[in-house]
């Protein structure tokens, strides 16, 4: 399967996941929101179940394809830690992350989400450009 096909099918599965959660449970599959509510102790059983399922995803991939999904880490641990903190802070401040705003917000044509996605994608493009310029 070419990388674009696996990207498309993988994306559609993410859509199926979000659809299930909406139609059955009436909840939005926003990862940062689910994790935040779990940490705050709200709806613990369903939110914990989602996170456990999410973490089992790579294991299912291993069972189906006989290898772990490939992950290449090129950044140092301190850079990853700072990046993780900024992502966590920013997603809470912006009321959502790639899944909530990117998948769900765009699917329902939410103006707030369209602004959020345009903002974080363009800032990330600038950040990657700056990292590339100043590193080399």
């Amino acid at each position: 399967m070419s990388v674009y096909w696996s990207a498309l099918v993988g994306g559609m599965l993410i859509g199926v996941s979000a659809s299930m959660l909406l139609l059955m449970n009436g909840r939005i599959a926003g990862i940062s929101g689910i994790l935040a509510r779990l940490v705050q102790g709200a709806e613990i059983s369903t939110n914990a179940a989602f996170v456990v399922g999410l973490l089992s995803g790579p294991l299912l991939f291993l069972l189906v394809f006989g290898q772990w999904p490939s992950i290449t880490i090129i950044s140092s641990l301190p850079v990853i830690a700072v990046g993780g903190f900024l992502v966590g802070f920013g997603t809470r401040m912006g009321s959502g992350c790639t899944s909530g705003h990117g998948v769900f917000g765009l699917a329902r044509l939410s103006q707030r989400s369209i602004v959020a996605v345009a903002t974080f994608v363009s800032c990330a493009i600038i950040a990657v450009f700056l990292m590339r310029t100043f590193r080399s």
Partner: protein
Amino acid sequence: MNTQLLRVLVSLTSGAVFGFGLSLSGMLNPVRVRGFLDITGNWDPSLAFVLGGAVGVTAMAWRLAGRFIGQHSILASTCRKTDQSTVV
């Protein structure tokens, strides 16, 4: 089976499908995500296919939810769809 248990099972399955889809899409790999953002370098458009697939399927579910379920979802009396103030 009681409704709460069903809700937990739906959440578990939904999470697993999300995690498997994310693994299959290649976007667990930060290098692939970075490749999409690196428009002046060796651009990798994969993330657009991932987002396109996910948004397309979810948009259909959104329409379905509006038409058939209205203010309620199948297993919960409240649905986030009608609560515009919610944090996603």
